[in-house]
Protein backbone atom coordinates (compact mmCIF):
# COMPACT_ATOMS: atom_id res chain seq x y z
CA UNK A 1 0.00 0.00 0.00
CA UNK A 2 1.42 3.41 -0.94
CA UNK A 3 0.93 6.79 0.71
CA UNK A 4 -1.69 7.71 -1.92
CA UNK A 5 -3.84 4.74 -0.92
CA UNK A 6 -3.64 5.61 2.75
CA UNK A 7 -4.72 9.18 2.16
CA UNK A 8 -7.30 8.31 -0.48
CA UNK A 9 -10.25 8.70 1.89
CA UNK A 10 -8.92 11.97 3.32
CA UNK A 11 -10.35 15.33 2.45
CA UNK A 12 -7.65 17.50 0.97
CA UNK A 13 -6.99 20.84 2.63
CA UNK A 14 -4.94 23.36 0.71
CA UNK A 15 -2.49 25.66 2.49
CA UNK A 16 -4.92 28.60 2.56
CA UNK A 17 -7.66 26.49 4.10
CA UNK A 18 -5.11 25.06 6.51
CA UNK A 19 -3.86 28.48 7.62
CA UNK A 20 -7.41 29.65 8.12
CA UNK A 21 -8.19 26.47 10.08
CA UNK A 22 -5.26 26.85 12.50
CA UNK A 23 -5.89 30.57 12.88
CA UNK A 24 -9.50 30.03 13.89
CA UNK A 25 -9.23 26.85 15.95
CA UNK A 26 -7.79 26.77 19.42
CA UNK A 27 -4.74 24.61 20.07
CA UNK A 28 -5.71 21.36 21.72
CA UNK A 29 -8.95 21.16 19.75
CA UNK A 30 -7.32 19.51 16.74
CA UNK A 31 -4.34 17.28 15.98
CA UNK A 32 -1.59 18.13 13.54
CA UNK A 33 -0.15 14.79 12.58
CA UNK A 34 3.30 14.49 11.05
CA UNK A 35 3.49 11.06 9.42
CA UNK A 36 6.94 11.54 7.91
CA UNK A 37 10.12 9.97 9.16
CA UNK A 38 11.78 11.28 12.38
CA UNK A 39 14.70 12.79 10.45
CA UNK A 40 12.25 14.89 8.41
CA UNK A 41 10.35 15.93 11.54
CA UNK A 42 13.63 17.01 13.17
CA UNK A 43 14.62 19.06 10.12
CA UNK A 44 11.43 21.14 9.96
CA UNK A 45 7.87 20.65 11.11
CA UNK A 46 4.73 22.67 11.53
CA UNK A 47 4.86 23.82 15.19
CA UNK A 48 2.73 21.70 17.48
CA UNK A 49 2.79 18.65 15.24
CA UNK A 50 2.71 15.20 16.71
CA UNK A 51 5.12 12.75 15.12
CA UNK A 52 3.80 9.30 14.29
CA UNK A 53 5.66 7.94 11.27
CA UNK A 54 3.36 6.30 8.75
CA UNK A 55 4.78 2.79 9.16
CA UNK A 56 3.88 2.89 12.89
CA UNK A 57 0.55 4.71 12.57
CA UNK A 58 -1.67 1.65 12.75
CA UNK A 59 -0.20 0.43 16.03
CA UNK A 60 -0.14 3.93 17.59
CA UNK A 61 -3.67 5.08 16.70
CA UNK A 62 -4.65 4.99 20.39
CA UNK A 63 -2.35 7.99 20.96
CA UNK A 64 -4.75 10.13 18.93
CA UNK A 65 -8.16 11.43 19.92
CA UNK A 66 -10.70 10.31 17.28
CA UNK A 67 -13.08 13.08 18.35
CA UNK A 68 -10.66 15.82 17.28
CA UNK A 69 -10.10 16.81 13.65
CA UNK A 70 -6.80 15.40 12.39
CA UNK A 71 -4.73 17.18 9.76
CA UNK A 72 -1.99 14.93 8.44
CA UNK A 73 1.06 15.72 6.37
Amino acid sequence: MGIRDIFSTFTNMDTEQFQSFIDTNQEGNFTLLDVRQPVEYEGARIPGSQLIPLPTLNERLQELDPEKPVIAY
Partner: protein
Amino acid sequence: MLTGQGFKQVYNLKGGIAAWQGQPAAGPPEIGMMLVKGDETPQDIICLAYGLEEGLRKFYTAATQMAIEAEVIKVLSQLAEIEERHKQRLFDLYKAIDAADTTIESFENKVNSELMEGGFDPDKLLESSKPAFKNATDVLSFAMMLEAQGMDLYMRYADKSEDAQVKEILYKMADEEKTHLKSLGDLFEKL
Protein backbone atom coordinates in the same frame (compact mmCIF):
# COMPACT_ATOMS: atom_id res chain seq x y z
CA MET B 1 -6.44 4.40 7.70
CA LEU B 2 -7.78 6.92 10.22
CA THR B 3 -11.25 7.31 8.76
CA GLY B 4 -11.81 3.57 9.06
CA GLN B 5 -10.89 3.70 12.75
CA GLY B 6 -13.62 6.06 13.93
CA PHE B 7 -11.83 9.36 13.37
CA LYS B 8 -14.55 11.86 12.56
CA GLN B 9 -12.67 14.52 10.58
CA VAL B 10 -9.46 13.69 8.76
CA TYR B 11 -7.69 16.02 6.37
CA ASN B 12 -4.62 15.75 4.23
CA LEU B 13 -2.52 18.90 3.97
CA LYS B 14 -2.20 19.23 0.23
CA GLY B 15 1.45 19.61 -0.77
CA GLY B 16 2.58 18.80 2.77
CA ILE B 17 5.05 20.94 4.66
CA ALA B 18 6.75 21.96 1.39
CA ALA B 19 3.62 23.89 0.36
CA TRP B 20 3.13 25.47 3.77
CA GLN B 21 4.65 28.95 4.11
CA GLY B 22 4.77 29.36 7.89
CA GLN B 23 7.63 29.34 10.37
CA PRO B 24 8.66 25.75 11.10
CA ALA B 25 9.90 24.31 14.37
CA ALA B 26 12.87 21.97 14.37
CA GLY B 27 14.78 19.52 16.55
CA PRO B 28 14.17 15.98 17.76
CA PRO B 29 10.93 15.09 19.58
CA GLU B 30 12.72 15.02 22.94
CA ILE B 31 14.29 18.50 22.62
CA GLY B 32 13.35 20.57 25.66
CA MET B 33 11.59 17.54 27.08
CA MET B 34 14.34 16.80 29.58
CA LEU B 35 12.50 19.32 31.70
CA VAL B 36 9.28 17.27 31.66
CA LYS B 37 8.75 13.68 32.71
CA GLY B 38 4.97 13.61 32.44
CA ASP B 39 4.15 13.36 36.13
CA GLU B 40 4.66 17.06 36.86
CA THR B 41 2.21 18.90 39.01
CA PRO B 42 0.44 21.92 37.52
CA GLN B 43 2.79 24.04 39.68
CA ASP B 44 5.88 22.50 38.04
CA ILE B 45 4.56 23.15 34.55
CA ILE B 46 3.62 26.71 35.45
CA CYS B 47 7.21 27.29 36.61
CA LEU B 48 8.58 25.98 33.31
CA ALA B 49 6.19 28.09 31.28
CA TYR B 50 7.07 31.14 33.38
CA GLY B 51 10.77 30.59 32.64
CA LEU B 52 10.11 30.29 28.92
CA GLU B 53 7.99 33.44 28.92
CA GLU B 54 10.73 35.30 30.78
CA GLY B 55 13.23 34.13 28.15
CA LEU B 56 11.02 35.50 25.39
CA ARG B 57 10.44 38.75 27.26
CA LYS B 58 14.18 39.24 27.72
CA PHE B 59 14.76 38.64 24.04
CA TYR B 60 12.09 41.12 22.93
CA THR B 61 13.31 43.74 25.40
CA ALA B 62 16.92 43.34 24.24
CA ALA B 63 15.83 43.41 20.59
CA THR B 64 14.14 46.79 21.06
CA GLN B 65 17.59 48.23 21.93
CA MET B 66 18.91 47.33 18.51
CA ALA B 67 18.98 49.84 15.68
CA ILE B 68 15.99 48.68 13.71
CA GLU B 69 12.86 50.21 12.19
CA ALA B 70 10.46 52.05 14.49
CA GLU B 71 7.51 49.88 13.48
CA VAL B 72 9.43 46.72 14.37
CA ILE B 73 10.53 48.17 17.71
CA LYS B 74 6.89 48.98 18.45
CA VAL B 75 5.80 45.41 17.81
CA LEU B 76 8.71 43.95 19.80
CA SER B 77 7.84 46.23 22.74
CA GLN B 78 4.23 45.08 22.55
CA LEU B 79 5.35 41.45 22.53
CA ALA B 80 7.62 42.06 25.55
CA GLU B 81 4.61 43.54 27.38
CA ILE B 82 2.45 40.57 26.40
CA GLU B 83 5.05 38.13 27.72
CA GLU B 84 5.11 40.13 30.96
CA ARG B 85 1.33 39.74 31.17
CA HIS B 86 1.71 36.01 30.49
CA LYS B 87 4.13 35.81 33.40
CA GLN B 88 1.69 37.62 35.66
CA ARG B 89 -1.13 35.33 34.56
CA LEU B 90 1.04 32.28 35.25
CA PHE B 91 1.92 33.56 38.70
CA ASP B 92 -1.76 34.24 39.46
CA LEU B 93 -2.57 30.72 38.31
CA TYR B 94 0.21 29.33 40.48
CA LYS B 95 -1.16 31.15 43.51
CA ALA B 96 -4.67 29.91 42.75
CA ILE B 97 -3.47 26.28 42.60
CA ASP B 98 -0.84 26.34 45.30
CA ALA B 99 -2.33 26.29 48.76
CA ALA B 100 0.80 27.84 50.27
CA ASP B 101 1.10 31.60 50.57
CA THR B 102 3.62 32.21 47.75
CA THR B 103 5.45 35.46 47.18
CA ILE B 104 6.74 36.46 43.74
CA GLU B 105 10.32 36.19 45.09
CA SER B 106 9.98 32.62 46.31
CA PHE B 107 8.14 31.69 43.12
CA GLU B 108 10.88 33.15 40.89
CA ASN B 109 13.56 31.40 42.93
CA LYS B 110 11.80 28.12 42.31
CA VAL B 111 11.50 28.91 38.58
CA ASN B 112 15.20 29.78 38.29
CA SER B 113 16.45 26.72 40.11
CA GLU B 114 14.26 24.42 37.99
CA LEU B 115 15.36 26.00 34.72
CA MET B 116 19.06 25.88 35.62
CA GLU B 117 18.61 22.23 36.48
CA GLY B 118 17.12 21.65 33.01
CA GLY B 119 19.99 23.46 31.28
CA PHE B 120 17.82 26.23 29.81
CA ASP B 121 19.60 29.58 29.69
CA PRO B 122 17.80 32.33 27.76
CA ASP B 123 20.63 34.84 28.40
CA LYS B 124 23.16 32.59 26.70
CA LEU B 125 20.86 32.04 23.73
CA LEU B 126 20.42 35.77 23.29
CA GLU B 127 24.13 36.54 23.60
CA SER B 128 25.09 33.88 21.08
CA SER B 129 22.44 35.07 18.61
CA LYS B 130 23.08 38.81 18.78
CA PRO B 131 25.92 38.89 16.21
CA ALA B 132 23.53 37.48 13.61
CA PHE B 133 21.10 40.39 13.98
CA LYS B 134 21.90 42.81 11.17
CA ASN B 135 18.45 44.22 10.47
CA ALA B 136 14.75 43.98 11.29
CA THR B 137 14.29 40.91 9.12
CA ASP B 138 16.92 39.01 11.14
CA VAL B 139 15.33 40.00 14.44
CA LEU B 140 11.82 39.10 13.28
CA SER B 141 13.04 35.78 11.87
CA PHE B 142 14.64 34.96 15.20
CA ALA B 143 11.52 36.03 17.10
CA MET B 144 9.37 33.83 14.83
CA MET B 145 11.75 30.93 15.39
CA LEU B 146 11.48 31.39 19.18
CA GLU B 147 7.69 31.62 19.09
CA ALA B 148 7.44 28.56 16.82
CA GLN B 149 9.76 26.57 19.10
CA GLY B 150 7.89 27.80 22.17
CA MET B 151 4.53 26.86 20.74
CA ASP B 152 5.84 23.49 19.63
CA LEU B 153 7.29 22.84 23.08
CA TYR B 154 4.04 23.77 24.85
CA MET B 155 2.13 21.37 22.60
CA ARG B 156 4.59 18.57 23.31
CA TYR B 157 4.40 19.30 27.05
CA ALA B 158 0.61 19.19 26.74
CA ASP B 159 0.67 15.85 24.94
CA LYS B 160 2.98 14.39 27.57
CA SER B 161 1.16 15.80 30.55
CA GLU B 162 -1.25 13.55 32.40
CA ASP B 163 -3.05 16.30 34.29
CA ALA B 164 -6.10 17.79 32.54
CA GLN B 165 -5.57 21.18 34.17
CA VAL B 166 -1.94 21.26 33.00
CA LYS B 167 -2.99 20.29 29.48
CA GLU B 168 -5.50 23.12 29.39
CA ILE B 169 -2.91 25.68 30.57
CA LEU B 170 -0.42 24.52 27.96
CA TYR B 171 -2.92 24.51 25.11
CA LYS B 172 -3.85 28.06 26.00
CA MET B 173 -0.21 29.16 26.09
CA ALA B 174 0.43 27.44 22.74
CA ASP B 175 -2.58 29.19 21.31
CA GLU B 176 -1.27 32.59 22.36
CA GLU B 177 2.21 31.88 20.96
CA LYS B 178 0.46 30.99 17.71
CA THR B 179 -1.19 34.42 17.70
CA HIS B 180 2.22 36.03 18.27
CA LEU B 181 3.65 34.04 15.41
CA LYS B 182 0.90 35.32 13.16
CA SER B 183 1.44 38.97 14.12
CA LEU B 184 5.19 38.63 13.59
CA GLY B 185 4.52 36.98 10.23
CA ASP B 186 2.22 39.84 9.21
CA LEU B 187 4.89 42.34 10.17
CA PHE B 188 7.52 40.39 8.29
CA GLU B 189 5.36 40.54 5.16
CA LYS B 190 5.20 44.33 5.43
CA LEU B 191 9.00 44.83 5.54
